[in-house]
């Protein structure tokens, strides 16, 4: 046989428009999982300032909370965590063979609930924490 043509990953990524619900759920689950792992390390780093004393810890947290950007990021973090949890429940049901024919609907429900919770959290997060 002569040469064959391997279309490669780039072409694959170009197909995102054709993804269906299960595929988006898979992608979002991966991405949110990685974000949560990244956050966990940042979280530990911030908390570990407590080892340098009370005032350093309070200043670090207060300083971060003072930044509007951080408060926006917190809304995002909540959305990421909520989606990951809800989709985790969806995956658990899939593993157990429950409601497999409604997996797409379950994904949309997870998205909507995530959106609602994130929106509802905006006033609290943007107001910041007064120490």
């Amino acid at each position: 046989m002569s040469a064959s043509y391997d279309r490669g990953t780039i072409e694959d990524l170009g197909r995102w428009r054709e993804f269906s619900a299960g595929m988006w759920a898979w992608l979002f689950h991966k991405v949110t999982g990685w974000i949560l792992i990244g956050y966990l390390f940042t979280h530990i780093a911030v908390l570990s300032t407590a080892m340098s004393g009370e005032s350093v810890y309070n200043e670090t947290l207060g300083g971060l909370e003072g930044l509007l950007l951080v408060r926006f990021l917190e809304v995002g973090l909540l959305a990421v965590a909520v989606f990951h949890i809800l989709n985790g429940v969806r995956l658990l049901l899939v593993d157990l063979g429950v409601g497999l024919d409604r997996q797409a609907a379950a994904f949309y429900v997870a998205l909507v609930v995530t959106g609602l919770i994130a929106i509802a959290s905006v006033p609290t997060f943007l107001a910041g924490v007064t120490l």
Partner: protein
Amino acid sequence: MSSTPSDDTETVHSDDDPAVASVRPEAGMADPSEAERVTPDLDDEETATMRVFRYDPDVPERAEPHYDEFVIPTHEGMTVLDALIYARDTYDSSLTFRHSCQQAVCGSDALFVQGAQRLACRTQLSALGDPIQIDPLPHKPVEKDLVVDMSDFYDQMEAIEPYFDPDETPADDLEEQRQSPENREKIKLSTRCIQCGACQSSCNVAAGDNEYLGPAAINKAYRFVMDEREGAERRKTRLEIVEDEHGVWRCQTQFSCTDVCPKDIPLTEHIQALKREGVKDDLKFWE
């Protein structure tokens, strides 16, 4: 390649090209049974435009992957496969694709049509927009035009030892080996597979790991694991095969396979069922 710019596209039929007359069909030339429908003047006909992936390593002009466009006169009930056959027989005899039964039984004409893996013979042109983009199955090396190398798929099917293998066979060769109606019902959908490879081609996990058994092979394993006529020993070895590191646990429930299977086999469900069987089996440590 799905985003190949239009200047790569060679329009085979174009109304303002005088040379086109030579590729216009003569009445009845494409398919004698459709003689009345195929008229020389396409302007009076309903037409569809197909954008077909072309690649031929043996012909220098076609060695660079590109798309060709074919304008096809359509008729009610026309399928993508009919259109491809028309294009090949009328415009370009070098256009290469696989097909056989034309009735969704042989599984040889799975293609990537308008963004999804489909059987060309089962896909109505009327259900698609225009132009109709036709690519070879993704995640497989292209041999020529729409023909892909299916070796990985066949290797995976082979790996699950897809043969009915009961522990005991009746002493009398002519005695039937009966299966209960309930058991038949349980495996019914899994027996429908026509080995078209659409599911495997749609699966990202299979794309990243060509040793992953993939949906079709796991579904075939399900067909045998759940068959009450195979003995406990055989069941155990079958579960060992699907529980291999490239087996069921690779499935990340994308549902792409279930979405594209032309035979509506609930593949993800079957894969999950085998995961559960595997776990149940592993928990029985006293056996």
